[in-house]
């Protein structure tokens, strides 16, 4: 297994928003989906997931509902709200710009300066 990457500060919220934007998920599902999409490369502290979920719900970016899980058990499902969709879009753009800018800086060569 490849060495797992620790999450950058503040990126967990973005990942959660992205994960639930693809369809309602319960907490464990969010964890699995992020790991799955990232190709098992991102390391998420399981305990830190829930405070983040609660915070996002408190901010109104995601909403929760109790439902039934794949194995017929009661589970709490999260889905993206309209506000969450806007936030995800804004955050994604911001991330792209930031990543682009940082990548540009890191690509710099003596000749280019």
């Amino acid at each position, binding site marked *: 297994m490849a060495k797992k990457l620790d999450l950058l500060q503040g990126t967990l919220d973005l990942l959660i928003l992205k994960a639930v934007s693809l369809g309602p998920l319960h907490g*464990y599902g969010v964890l699995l989906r992020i790991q799955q999409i990232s190709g098992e490369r991102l390391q998420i502290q399981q*305990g830190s997931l829930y*405070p983040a979920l609660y915070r996002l719900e408190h901010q*109104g970016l995601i909403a929760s509902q109790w439902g039934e899980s794949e*194995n017929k058990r009661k589970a709490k499902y999260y889905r993206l709200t309209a506000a969450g969709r806007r936030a995800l879009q804004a955050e994604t753009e911001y991330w792209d710009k930031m990543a682009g800018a940082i990548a540009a800086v890191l690509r710099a060569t003596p000749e280019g300066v």
Partner: protein
Amino acid sequence: MLVKRFRSWLRATLQRRVVEREMDDELRFHVERYAEDLKRGGMERGEAERQARLEFGSVGQTKEACREARGADRLDSLLSDIHYGLRRLRSTPGFAGLAVVTLALGIGATTAVFSLVNAVLLRDLPYRDSERLVFLYEPIPGIPDVPLEAFGPVNGDFFTWQKQSRSFESMAMFTNNGLNASLGDAAFRATGSRVTGDFFRVLGVSPALGRTPDDADTQPGHERVVVISQPFWQSRFAGDRNVLGREMLLNARPYRIIGVMPAGFAFPHGTESLETTGKTTEIWVPWTMTPEQRASRDDNPGNAIGRLRPGVSLSQAQVEIAAISSRFDPPFQQQNRKPQGVVRPFDEEITGGSRRALLIFMAAVLLVLVIACSNVAGLGLARASGRAREISIRAALGASRLRLVRQLLAESLCVALAGGVLGMAAAFWIVRLLVDFHPANIPRIEETSIDGRVLLFTICVSLATAVFSGLFPAWSGSRCNLNETIKGSGARSVRSGASRLHSWLIVAEMALTIVLLIGSGLLIHSFLRLRSVDKGFASFRTVTMGLQLDGRYNSPQRQNEFFHTLVARVRAVPGVQEAAAVDHVPLGGGESISLIEVEGNPFDEKTSFESRSVTPRYFAAMGIPLLAGRAFDDGDAAGRTPVIIVSRSFERRYFPGRTALGKRVHATGWRTIVGVVADVRMRELDTTPPMQFYSPLWQTPTGSAVVVVRGTLPLERTASALRGLVRNMDAALAVADVRTMEQLISEASAERRFQTLVLTVFGGISLFLSLLGLYALMAYSVQRRTAEIGIRMALGAQPSAVMGLVLRQGATLWLGGIALGFVCAWSVTRWMRSLLFEVQPTDPLTFVGVAALFCAVAAMACYVPARRATRVDPVISLRYE
């Protein structure tokens, strides 16, 4: 967004149990699913569950973080902290009770003093836009020792100001008088004020009934009308609404009542800066002036107030008034000096000199509060180190340091709030006590009450108290070495950081107490000095009462005749030994100051003299020693050789080493000095009397005098005898201000007595508190050192040595406190110089006395724990751990 957050917070708060259960379910679901996945991956069941739990981390911490994320945390955890805190406090009722009572004392005293400050200094005066009100004065430069307030403008200049200035919306003049009032039966004295037409408009007060006077009412020849105060209306007319139009006699002339002022309106009496007799004005009379009187620049019978136009500042008004005044002609006596105009803020004139005393009270009471807080902090420190194990366990279970501090603070919040509630109750009681004590010279003090601002203040003080008294223990308590404490070796260390902090707290507390004690000691010393000061007169068995003749006695002969007959008749009353009359009795509130020329010396306008007009037996009746020459006698009548009697310091200043007898003085004509008497403290007890002189009343007649009676009769008998005599002579005259000289002396020292009492009470409270703190520290330290003491005793230490050990430790603390307190007191007591009398701010006697007192009681506070130390049983103490 905000609404959503609020709803989420509300749900989290209100449906706490549901939310908690859901959270449990959710987290459990996660762990179980993970375990299942691990099992599916080939792990053994038990191992999978263990692994899942391990990877998830602390469920408790996660839940705590979730609660925090929901926003429910703040109130929620506060509530649970408080709940837990209360439970902890209940388990140690001794600590809780002591802490609550200590804080209640501090908060109660602080609240009480603040409510005084609030009533006297902060609360708006009961006048519309009172910040726009000002006093106006016209001082004559170069006259020393005369307060600004004595310089009301002369009539002519006032009306010029009124006409020419643009800064003022309105201006008015007023006087303070006693009035002989009568409603048909016996005459009585009422406090009155003559007011010009705009008086009520300046103050912005409307009558409760009827109308206030207007300009027409001040025209000569117009019908005489008056406005009365609400209390006067209640007491004299039983609140009858038909009072309007009723007639009353004032100074033997009929007046018609046209209005009743609202309750609480009592200006100008009770104003700190004005010489007034009585605290409230009862009757306002329109001030009728002839055109000549309006233009007069010879005397200044009244004071002036004004209302600034909106947007005009005090300094703008000051500039304008000064400019107008600079165009006035100089006053007649002082051709080389220009008159001035001075504008002063109204509220400062009302409360005057009490500001300083009140601020000193406030500072003192805040010291008491700080002492109370550090006491509770000390108790908390001792308690926190006793709880080290409990706290370490909580920390080991995942409580963050902030969480621990918050939890410990919640406990002190409980204590402080309980102290606040109890303190509020105490404040009610203290305020009642203070106002009942009735410090004569603090205006508006009777308005003191607990209002919204005081309530807010108390709440803030309680919260601040919680932080101050809780932060130290919480911070030091939450700093724990997990390993050490849980292993159990933590408690064995004899001295830890916490107990050093505790010692410092107690030393600082004792130092503050020393400062307070020295402050009150200086005041007590001053007060004792004042009590024994040579007043220049003998107060024993002397009764005084005021009489004011009215316009019917319009010639010097009639005035003289009246007082001559009255004094003769009073002297004939059985039991009366001496009787006399004087224009102003010592300490009675009136003052008369003169500029005179002494033969052989150039006229000096910078030297003023206190002057009195007296009848022949005055010095005997007042017990003023005659040092040389003779007293006045009936031969010193009007039309005879003008004579004068001077004070000892007068003689020493102008005739050093010689006699003043036979020399002449120019005061309303040349007068020959026939006697020398002792210096008398006439105005105040605590100021050295200026030079004084007396003229015979018969040669300087007056319409207003105080009768002085010395005799064997009690006060009431003397008063009723005199009332009867006056009634027989003229039923329209009223006897006022019947008081013994002892009462006048007591009134003259009332303010000082009040200050001394208040500071002494504060000093006493803080002494009690800091000794309690010292006791608690020593008791705690003995308890901590039980093992050490046990070992010492097992090795053969004598009880006396053990006691010495403890006492030495205590003595180091209290001597440190005294030393530190001396240094602080040395640097701060000079701020109270103005409150002291014949005592230096660094008075060694007071310093030493306070130190001795403190040592004695501190030794007692340490003795009890020291005794307990000697009773330590080595066997038990070594097993104690």
